[in-house]
């Protein structure tokens, strides 16, 4: 998903001044890309909704710190990615799973013979999904992902490679079953 949304400077200035209508306009402009990013990374729609809410609470609290350097979407997206990764890390700590654990897929689902890319992607681990989405779709560099995750660049690279190898296996298995 590509976001090419231009936000007028005057709207940002009004939001910085605490104008409720301007803050709501920012929310409306970015709620879908933020939710989409969160939903692609998080396991459940409820988790993604929570990330959306936490992200905009942070945006409203911190909008005055945004100095107009770079696209506003880049600034909001980084907040959203940070919130999503923090939630994943917290859930993994609660479940006592290592961060680079191989996946189990989403609860209540299983891989059948016929699987498309979207479902195969959902069956990656939380960490793998995050790395693939941030790198391949959102365009983050490995350095940026490593920074967001508190991990090394090589960790990000190896996660990406493992994720693509797994996607390839899942999709090839599907093709084989269909043939």
């Amino acid at each position, binding site marked *: 998903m590509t976001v090419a949304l231009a936000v007028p400077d005057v709207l940002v200035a009004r939001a910085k001044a605490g*104008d409720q209508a301007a803050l709501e306009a920012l929310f409306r402009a970015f709620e879908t890309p933020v939710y989409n990013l969160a939903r692609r990374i998080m396991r459940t729609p409820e988790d993604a909704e929570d990330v*959306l809410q936490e992200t905009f609470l942070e945006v409203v609290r911190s909008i005055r710190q945004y100095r107009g350097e770079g696209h506003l979407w880049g600034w909001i997206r980084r907040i959203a990615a940070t919130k999503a990764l923090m939630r994943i890390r917290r859930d993994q700590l609660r479940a006592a799973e290592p961060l680079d654990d191989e996946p189990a897929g989403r609860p209540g689902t299983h891989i059948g013979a016929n699987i498309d890319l979207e479902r195969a*992607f959902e069956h990656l681990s939380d960490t793998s999904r995050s790395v693939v*989405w941030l790198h391949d*779709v959102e365009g983050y560099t490995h350095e940026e992902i490593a920074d967001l995750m508190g991990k090394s660049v090589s960790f990000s690279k190896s996660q990406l490679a493992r994720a693509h*190898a797994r996607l*390839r296996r899942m999709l090839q298995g599907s093709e084989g079953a269909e043939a």
Partner: protein
Amino acid sequence: MMHCTMDDLLALRAGEASVWARKHIETCAACRAELDALYQRVAQLKALPALRPPRDRWPVVRDAVRGERARRRRTWGVWSLAAAAALAGVLLLQPNQAALHAELAEVKQQSATLEEQLQRYDVDGRVLSGRAAALVADLEDRIAVIDGALTSPAQDAQRVKLWQQRVGLMQQLVTVRATRARYVGL
């Protein structure tokens, strides 16, 4: 025959592949097909439809922020008055600095009064014109800088000067808000 690993394919895509991988991909049809498949997977991921939130979360965000603002204003008002009262007490103990402290207490009291006035105009973050909003943002930024300086240790004379600057900016802020309130008939 040795083939490219997924690491090799990703490095080829990023333009960071080894000499061996770059030479190999030119002659190996199987690895070229794997590289094409990698490009296709990424293109398909980028083309997935946007998922939209099932519920409107704005009311929750708005209410939470309003609550935080109200608490912050109350805390600031109480803090200003307490600081003014504490200074009044100090006056009694250090008569040689009485004039300076009196000035400090007075300017803090002015600041607290202006905060109360501002709160009346800014209860719900009412709609501002773009120009007014930019002015308010600038004034609030400058006040924030002064607030930051006031948290650092400083001589009384310097503190009086900072508080006077703060009061001046607060007066401008109140004027902007009051003008806007009159304009919309509040």
